[in-house]
């Protein structure tokens, strides 16, 4: 800085310089708290960034619950039955567990044109090596005829057969269909084996 041509006349005053000071800790804490609060606020009021969700709804799910309900009550009921009895093995995604429990999503057994075998399978259970979508599974499913009513079974089968989230789109099952097969199979006390089931005509 010393550009004075005359060295015998040094500058009396030095230019002020900026030092550095430590930023107070409370400022960081305050910013962190504000950011935390902001995230929480966004989470509660942002509607999940869904363009269709407006105040006072907080998520698409809440909004869907308030839509007028009509028609497929069996499907909704079936979901409840599934969540209570089936999801432990077959999982909420319907994909089952590899090498243990067979999938329902995309399964050729589930999506059969007529639900005759499926109803028998749920009523009396199944045991033995079963081939689902080309994969073999060997475990047992308990009989449900004591625990589930005709309506429960019909609705849960409607749910797994028609669940589009799983990619299934088979027809509904009515309580009357279950009732008929339950009456026909009243004497049976053992679980089905897959081979035995395959011999049953689907639409009976």
């Amino acid at each position: 800085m010393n550009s004075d041509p005359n060295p015998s006349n040094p500058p009396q005053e030095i230019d002020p310089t900026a030092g550095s000071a430590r930023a107070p800790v409370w400022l960081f804490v305050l910013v962190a708290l504000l950011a935390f609060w902001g995230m929480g606020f966004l989470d509660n009021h942002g509607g999940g960034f869904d363009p269709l969700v407006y105040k006072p709804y907080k998520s698409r799910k809440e909004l869907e619950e308030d839509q007028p309900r009509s028609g497929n009550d069996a499907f909704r009921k079936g979901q409840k039955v599934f969540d209570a009895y089936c999801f432990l093995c077959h999982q909420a995604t319907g994909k089952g567990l590899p090498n243990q429990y067979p999938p329902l999503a995309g399964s050729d057994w589930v999506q059969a044109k007529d639900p005759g075998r499926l109803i028998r399978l749920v009523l009396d259970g199944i045991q033995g090596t079963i081939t689902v979508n080309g994969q073999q599974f060997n475990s047992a499913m308990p009989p449900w005829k004591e625990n589930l009513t005709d309506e429960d079974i019909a609705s849960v089968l409607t749910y797994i057969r028609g669940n589009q989230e799983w990619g299934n789109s088979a027809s509904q099952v009515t309580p009357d269909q279950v009732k008929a097969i339950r009456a026909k199979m009243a004497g049976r006390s053992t679980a089905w084996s897959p081979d035995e089931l395959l011999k049953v005509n689907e639409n009976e």
Partner: protein
Amino acid sequence: MTIFLFFALALSWFGLVFEPQLQLGNAQPATNVVNTAELYPQRRPGLAKQGLEVYRSLGCASCHSQQIGQTGRTYDVALTDAGTNRAEVVRALLRVMPEATAVELEKLVAGPMPLKVLKDVTRAVADSAVEKLEPTGAKAVVKVIPTGPDIAHGWGKRRSVAEDFLFDQPVMLGSQRIGPDLADVGSRLPVAEWHLLHLYNPKIVEKKSVMPPYRFLFEKRKTGREPSPDALRFTGEYAPERDCEIVPTDQAKALVAYLLSLRADTVIFETPVTVAVPASTNAPAVSTNAPVAGATNAPPK
């Protein structure tokens, strides 16, 4: 420093401009819930579109907003059909309404339907009530009721959403509320003649109104051999001289057509609300001179 400034501005541009454009920029009319065959919203008819320009030029938006807010929602449960097994229904009702007595309920169940079972409850309570009632063969419904100060005013049945403004250019949202909100005025006050009288002199229909009269939208002229079919029909002190009549200009007709086309009563996915009768669609009434027989002109309290 500059880089921070740039990020601060870029971030808010993303949040306030870019993201909404991504979400709503391509919005298409779609989700009419009650009448699925019909899309919502529909374009306004030509006269109403001209009315929007009149609305804009008169500065109506500086005193009237067009946006209904909603702060919450509540649920009612109603029994629509008691079925055949009355005793079983009464037993289920006793579990749902513990404060009522069996004798009362028997009388109610035998009475007219729908019967209000629960009022002002949460969704979970309403759902569990329906679950208790339905196995008895009775039919019960959960009603969704939006709440909030605007809805309590009677300005509309549901909140306004982006979809409502899809075809408006410009959107006359308004921010001041010196007068009432007009987002649903077409279904709240569906009579064209009411609007014409109100524009001519607001005090005719609303004694306490602070709205200025818009007489220049009307023409005062000598009555011909026959009175004009469009002429306003006055009662009492506001009537013009004996041989004169007050006739709305095209501007007034267009403005009224626009006001009648302002309807936010179609139930769409974003705004669930249980309507008593399937709401008529948002097709606005275009006629400006035929009063609806028997319709009341009184604004809702």
